[in-house]
């Protein structure tokens, strides 16, 4: 069912130049931010991209948005290759893919009113030239985002709202274009725990009501909960494990996933578990380790891991992991 | 330090020096064309100056090739007269200007009929004496008052320092000089110059004391004006530093106020001052021109004033070049000093 797939990523790579060859050094260096990623997203599906900072999850989302040019590979959106779209095509695509950012304090222009912020996408795309119709759409987007009644918010400025309300405004600004795909880059990590749930629940309700697909980027798997259908765990630019939420939580295959899950604190003092704490820090994505890129920190590393780079291989129909232990 | 890092530092150093060299080249070229693009080609016109001796006119004409085209394709630039493009580039005024510059020849003054370079060398030292004394005093007082203002923030000390700084900054240098001169002459201070004429027969200590007496008013003018700016910067910089988290850490460690100011605040707050001193060198020269004009101090700034009064264009051209090049070099030194002081810049 190819129609069912809204987004397909094939062998996507995004490298950044780190050192420029100059008078004194001839060596070119690259940051391997996203290094060979394959991913399919179904219509109405929510996938969580999980990983620590520097794993490439944010670069991946920016590349999918077309805000960074892919180095290699292709991105197919609704069956069309958009990897190297022209500016005109890109503008059209942006009505269909929208993004929500981590920091609602930063992602709203402090000099614009809420109305201006939510109207802006319509103006940029020249949609709904009639003022009444435009106002109605803005009002609808705000109320769908939980800011009811919208009239109370239209004339206010971002600094007059709370963090949760601001994130709702950001969501309204994305909704007003009626997107098919939403990229949410750590949308709750800057918010107090007490209001995270309302944003997650809002996204879940939107997905249910509108069938929007969501890519949810986070460093903390526990915040996603049942909201996500599938989880992709990333490490140093690669997906190391991919499966349904249940697969990954109940039966993690990759040693990195296991460690990551074990260190997420559980709010129950009777459940103090043995944590797998990895040594050291994520290596520099310029000089990648040989073989499996996780081997220097892997508690289960074997000799072969230093030479052989594992591929993402299926464990079951819905579950895959890139580990030589799994392949055996 | 690893060899890679020292290579990196070396590279940054070379880059900075290279960039300053380029700026100097730009100034040199600008200095040539300014005096030829602007109306009347004063260099050429000036050779008919009645004060200018015939033999000097001839020497200047030969040495600076004033009968030659300005550059390839152009006989003169104002009014624009095109000429032969295939002429040997070494046979142009521009090349001769560069060649003479390389030899340290800056032309002959219309007024004294002596080489401009000789006049400037003597005056450079006088200016350095004045600027040096003024800078040291203004930086010192600016820092001390700024420190007290920030430390005692929101008290009478702070407000008076702030107002003093703002008023001092707003004073036109030359006017403050005039007022101090007016007041000083009534109090018996020397009214101008560097040294009392005829004192050269006295012992050296007398001469030094005499120069110092002449320096009091110009240095005071300089100090007041620039102290204002340093005070304001020091105050605001220290206010920033003192509200940083690491000051709270230092306090939590049990350090005394004196220790915190000395070991944690001063160096961090001084860094912006170094930058400002560098950027200010241009303004410093502006100040020197004004002060030396008012107090007839025989420095470079005074030379500007005299050159303007006497329409002595070779002198003006020479002074401008020397001032600009000195400022570029001083800027480079301040920049290198900054990267020595701030470990964060050092390693980049």
């Amino acid at each position, binding site marked *: 069912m190819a129609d069912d797939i809204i987004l397909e990523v094939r062998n996507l790579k995004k490298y950044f130049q780190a050192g420029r060859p100059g008078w004194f050094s001839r060596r070119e260096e690259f940051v391997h931010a996203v290094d060979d990623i394959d991913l399919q997203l179904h219509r109405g599906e929510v996938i969580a991209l999980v990983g620590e900072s520097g794993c490439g999850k944010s670069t991946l989302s920016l590349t999918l948005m077309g805000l960074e040019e892919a180095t290699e590979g292709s991105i197919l959106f609704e069956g069309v290759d958009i990897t190297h779209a022209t500016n005109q095509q890109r503008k059209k695509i942006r009505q269909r893919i929208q993004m929500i950012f981590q920091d609602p304090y930063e992602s709203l222009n402090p000099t614009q009113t809420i109305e201006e912020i939510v109207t802006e996408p319509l103006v940029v795309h020249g949609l709904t030239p009639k003022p009444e119709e435009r106002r109605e759409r803005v009002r609808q987007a705000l109320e769908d985002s939980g800011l*009811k009644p919208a009239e109370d918010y239209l004339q206010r400025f971002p600094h007059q709202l709370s963090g949760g309300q601001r994130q709702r405004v950001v969501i309204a600004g994305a909704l007003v274009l009626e997107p098919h795909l939403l990229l949410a880059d750590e949308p709750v990590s800057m918010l107090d725990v007490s209001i995270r*749930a309302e944003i997650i629940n809002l996204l879940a309700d939107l997905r249910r009501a509108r069938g929007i697909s969501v890519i949810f980027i986070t460093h903390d798997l526990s915040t996603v909960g049942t909201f996500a259908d599938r989880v992709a765990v990333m490490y140093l630019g690669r997906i190391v494990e991919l499966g349904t939420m*249940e697969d990954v939580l109940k039966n993690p295959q990759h040693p990195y996933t296991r460690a990551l899950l074990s260190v997420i604190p559980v709010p129950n003092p009777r459940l103090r578990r043995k944590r797998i704490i990895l040594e050291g820090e994520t290596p520099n994505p310029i000089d990648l380790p040989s073989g499996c890129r996780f081997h220097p920190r892997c508690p289960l590393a074997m000799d072969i891991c230093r030479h052989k780079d594992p591929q993402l291989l299926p464990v079951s129909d819905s579950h895959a992991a890139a580990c030589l232990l799994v392949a055996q | 330090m690893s060899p890679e890092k020292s290579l990196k530092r070396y590279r940054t150093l070379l880059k900075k020096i290279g960039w300053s060299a380029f*700026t100097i080249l730009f100034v040199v070229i600008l200095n040539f064309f*300014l005096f030829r693009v602007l109306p009347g080609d004063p260099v050429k016109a000036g050779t008919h100056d009645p004060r200018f001796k015939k033999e000097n006119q001839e020497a200047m004409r030969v040495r600076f090739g004033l009968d030659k085209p300005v550059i390839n394709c152009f006989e003169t630039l104002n009014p624009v007269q095109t000429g032969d493009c295939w002429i040997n580039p070494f046979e142009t005024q521009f090349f001769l200007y560069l060649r003479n510059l390389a030899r340290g020849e800056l032309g002959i003054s219309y007024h004294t009929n002596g080489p401009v370079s000789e006049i400037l060398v003597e005056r450079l030292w006088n200016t350095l004496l004045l600027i040096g004394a003024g800078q040291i005093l203004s930086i010192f007082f600016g820092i001390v008052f700024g420190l007290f203002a920030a430390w005692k923030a929101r008290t009478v000390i702070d407000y008076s320092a702030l107002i003093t700084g703002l008023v001092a900054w707003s004073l036109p240098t030359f006017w403050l000089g005039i007022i101090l001169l007016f007041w000083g002459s009534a109090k018996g201070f020397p009214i101008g110059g560097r040294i009392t004429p005829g004192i050269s027969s006295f012992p050296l200590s007398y001469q030094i004391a005499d120069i110092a007496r002449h320096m009091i008013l110009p240095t005071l003018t300089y100090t007041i004006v620039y102290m204002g700016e340093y005070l304001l910067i020091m105050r605001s910089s220290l206010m920033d530093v003192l509200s940083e988290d690491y000051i709270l850490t230092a306090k939590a460690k049990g350090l005394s106020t004196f220790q915190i100011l000395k070991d944690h605040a001063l160096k961090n707050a001084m860094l912006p001052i170094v930058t400002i001193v560098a950027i200010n060198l241009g303004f410093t020269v502006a100040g020197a021109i004004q002060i030396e004009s008012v107090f007839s101090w025989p420095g470079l700034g005074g030379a500007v004033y005299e050159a*303007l009064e006497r329409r002595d264009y070779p002198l003006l051209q020479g002074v401008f070049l020397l001032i600009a090049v000195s400022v570029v070099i001083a800027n480079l030194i301040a920049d290198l000093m900054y990267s020595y002081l701030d470990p964060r810049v050092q390693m980049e």
Partner: protein
Amino acid sequence: MTMALPTAELKPSIPSSPFTDFWKLFRKNRMGVIGLVMLVLIIFVAIFAPLIAPYDPDSSAGITSRDLYNPPSAEHWFGTDDAGKDVLSSFMYGARVSLIVGFFAAFISIVIGGVIGIVAGFYGGRVENLLMRFTDTMLVIPDLPLIVVIVALTRPSLLNIIFVIGLLGWTTTARIVRSQTLAVKSRKFVLRARAIGAGNGHIIFNHILPLVMPLLVVNAILVISLAILNESTLSFLGLGDPTVTSWGQMLNFAFGRGAMSAGAWWALVAPGFGIVWVVLGLTLLGHGLEQVLNPRLEAHHLMPGRPTVQGEANLQPAPQGIKRESPVLLDVQNLSVNYVNEGRIMKAVHNVSFQLHEGELLGLVGESGCGKTTLMMALMRLLPAVGEIANGHIYFHGQDLAALTEAEMADVRWSGISVIFQGAMNALNPVRTVGDQIAEAIRKHLPEMPPGVVDSRVMELLELVGISAEHKDHYPHQYSGGMRQRAMIAMALSCNPQVVIADEPTTALDVMIQAQILELLDELRKRLGLSVIFVTHDLGVVAEMCDSVLVMYGGVTAEYADVDTIYNAPRHPYTQELLKAFPDLTRPDKRLVSIPGYPPKLDALPTGCRFAPRCPLAFERCTVEMPELHSLNGGIHVASCHLVEISPRPPSSLMPRRVEQD
């Protein structure tokens, strides 16, 4: 749909725009207002000079040789000049020249500098490189000599002067605008605008320009004053437009034509006074604008703090803490902290009591703005200058820390109680090596220790927290985030404290690094027998590490109990709601519920229970009466909620208790 509606969030008051906000703040800024008034006055004089000037400065009709350098009189308020003209009239006309040159030249500079700055900052790459190289080159060439040379070589007319000053005065503007553009460009709302599909033009005009504008205005004021100073200097050097009267020219004539020897101070003072008036007016206005646009708390950590007062009598005695075998180390009784600013009192912490036993790890939790950090800073007596301990005692080794002098407190800090601050990047001095900053504390508290021993102790401490000793001579920016936090821990342990306060030590760190740091902290605490107060908003971390928990809300104790009780039998609705909102990986199907609204602002605390506006169980009494602290289960569990009183489980008697001092 169980979507949490923001019903409890505040209804909008009268919407205020940034501009009305700005004006409100500016009106209160004395310097800015004085500067503005000075400028308005001089602009008035300049515009109406022909109407109000007593004489025409261009006409020499009726002037005789007896009129030269006449002192101020009834006819000539500011005296006469070298040509016998009225100084006051010339002064009034001179204002016109200064202001015209200042405004027009600055306009040219601002436009050039603004365009170059925005283009360079926004487009980056080669364009930026080229433009900024050019700007830097122009910046180091001293501008006054260049202006002098150009004006000297061209005809000195007003128009020439305006253009030369304007064309050479843009460099600082370009640099400032560029760095501001870069800063704005990196903000997320610009990325958001791109994600919407907006083009460069739209972004520059709608998102960059509005945020660069305030800075440009402040800079414009500086550029105007520099242009005015430059013009007056030019005129003083004799390069002014001979056809108009300017202040600089008046000074040039007076200085050059014997005002000094004639003792005619009025001819020298008046024009200079004009320049100072305008420039000072501009400077004050600029200073005021900057304070309003870029407000900084004019306060810092070295300002003297307010003394402790015992302002709240008749408080319910501190409830008994959680019983433990080990002795009490830190006993906090009825502690209140107020912020006093411009006569307004804000109760940041009210009547908090707890006991920290030897070897205990106490978790202090609550949302942001609940007074956690204020409480910790009060324990260390590190409150900001506006903060005061308004009531209560902090007993540590029999001493009441609240009553100590600053000098006595300095001895307790670090050797008795130390702090691991949130955000180690900012808590470490960037220009001193990490080792040096650790050694400094040791030298202060153990002055008899020889330097060599201090050095080896520093290395030992670094190794203890898992940093190899060779890194001791490195600067904080050479450390990674995790290493900095480790160094901060090493520093906190350097003087063998008994109590360590860890204020959100893992916020902003990755989960794995966070786990490493927490593991380290836990291990060190057990090994060294430390008592730790752990401030956090992460209920998961608390559950994994702490022995007891103090839940704060709106500056008061909501609930205080051992960790198992808090998680498995919480009595306060706030604790219950917090737990409902907190995700649990072991129960992925748990439907999370937010607490609607947000914690109360300190200047608008509710009259009754501080949690009542957000509490799902609130009833009438909660909105009028603040609940007392109720002890449950014989004093090992404390909750401040009216429901506890009503509940079937009877609250145990509140035994007044004094701490046995050792």
